[in-house]
């Protein structure tokens, strides 16, 4: 990497981080009015964040984007729809089941359920509940990517699918036990991790690009949207079944 490009990407990472630094500094000085504890440690931390972000963006353009796009072209050349759909499901399921944020929220949900008396307040029952929830969310993300990929291939308009999904969420909300609703809504947000997003986006755009008559802008995006929508429905269903 040339020195010029290096300073360029360092600068842009710094710019990305600047708002946070300003917000923290402002509230510390104006509202909290106490000197920051361990100032040196914080500076080191921010330097790590800047370098990390720079490397991540480079890896994005060199690794995640190209592999996502070339996979899309490879599947298009192969022309086997079933194979592509299996891959789509596996990608959604596989990336979600190990997601740390999901594990955290599932354990939290198990605690809530135990305190409300939905399940027995014992280690085994809570563990089963949490694992069940994780599998539910992973299956829902797998289905989301599968439906999303099918939509790109068939060229269905995203609006109708999203409206259908929202109606599903609203109907489920009316019937689901209240304790599960907040967790269900939040689980939609945690499923899409920093590594999954670029990969799935590149896959979608690549697929729309490789199929004649599809516009990458109109048809290529939208996979992430499905992956944030279906977990809400599935988790509320899980709450109803277990509750």
């Amino acid at each position, binding site marked *: 990497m040339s020195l010029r490009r290096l300073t360029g990407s360092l600068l842009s990472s710094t710019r990305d981080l600047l708002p946070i630094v300003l917000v923290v500094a402002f509230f510390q000085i104006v509202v909290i009015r106490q000197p920051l504890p361990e100032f040196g*440690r914080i500076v080191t931390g921010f330097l790590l964040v800047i370098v990390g972000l720079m490397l991540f963006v480079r890896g994005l353009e060199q690794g995640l984007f190209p592999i996502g796009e070339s996979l899309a072209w*490879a599947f298009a050349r192969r022309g086997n729809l079933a194979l592509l759909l299996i891959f789509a499901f596996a990608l959604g399921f596989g990336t979600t089941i190990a997601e740390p944020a999901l594990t955290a929220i599932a354990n939290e949900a198990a605690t809530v359920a135990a305190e409300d008396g939905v399940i027995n307040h014992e280690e085994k029952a809570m563990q089963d509940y949490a694992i069940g929830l994780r599998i539910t969310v992973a299956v829902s993300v797998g289905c989301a990517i599968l439906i999303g990929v099918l939509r790109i291939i068939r060229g269905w308009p995203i609006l109708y699918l999203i409206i259908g999904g929202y109606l599903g969420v609203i109907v489920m909300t009316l019937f689901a036990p209240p304790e599960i609703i907040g967790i269900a809504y939040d689980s939609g*947000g945690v499923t*899409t*991790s920093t590594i999954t997003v670029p*990969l799935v986006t590149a896959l979608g755009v690549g697929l729309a690009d490789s199929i004649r008559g599809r516009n990458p802008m109109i048809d290529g995006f939208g996979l992430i949207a499905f992956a944030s929508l279906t977990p809400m429905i599935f988790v509320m269903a899980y709450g109803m079944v277990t509750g």
Partner: protein
Amino acid sequence: MNLLQDIIDTGLATLTDILPIAVIIFGFRLLVLRQPIAGLGRILAGFAYVLVGLTLFLVGLQEALFPVGRAMAQQLTAHAIAGGGTLHGRTTYLWIYLFAAAIGFSTTIAEPALIAVAIKARQVSAGAIDAWGLRIAVAIGVALGITLGVFRIITGTPLHWYIITGYTIVIIQSMFAPRTIIALAYDSGGVTTSTVTVPLVTALGLGLAGSIPGRSPLLDGFGLVAFASLFPIMSVMAYAQLGSWWVRRGQFKHDEQT
């Protein structure tokens, strides 16, 4: 050497995050599709960059941002009760709202997944969608969403009414927004809430619900993330609507002059 230990631990955690993805991708590519990957070395190097970059990013956040941000959220929300609603003689709730908006905006700007989608959107639209414009539109949406979510926790109103109203607005907006932006707008709802935003916003929600009498952290503390995923959809569509309105207005003026 504590820092080194942190880097190793986080690195291993990130590796277990990447590994299933890599196995699925390379497994399908090599075993099922049986096609060689062009430029494999370069792509593997790219994965290594992602691994190291994300590790340093996360360790840095844990060192610098999360402790300070959490402490701030706790102090601000605790003062709301202990100080009888005031802090340094000012209304604390106002500070909490300001903090919610500022934290929502600034953490979204630094969110790596959003950076990725913005880069892709710029590439695909051949520059018609400005990466910074998109990110700022999303960040404004998150800021508004979290502020409203905090209002909900403080007032104790039910979450689903907000969400259902939000969906209705999104659906109406989708009918009028330019077609090219719709899918991207829906996507930006999902990407905003990951690495940087979620821990701080969750701390804010739990802190608030824990310090306001009559709120249960478990029942009321959740839901902020849902707000943060809903509002960017509206703000991105609004951004595109403003953009196309601006272009039409420019053309109209241009036509008048000629």
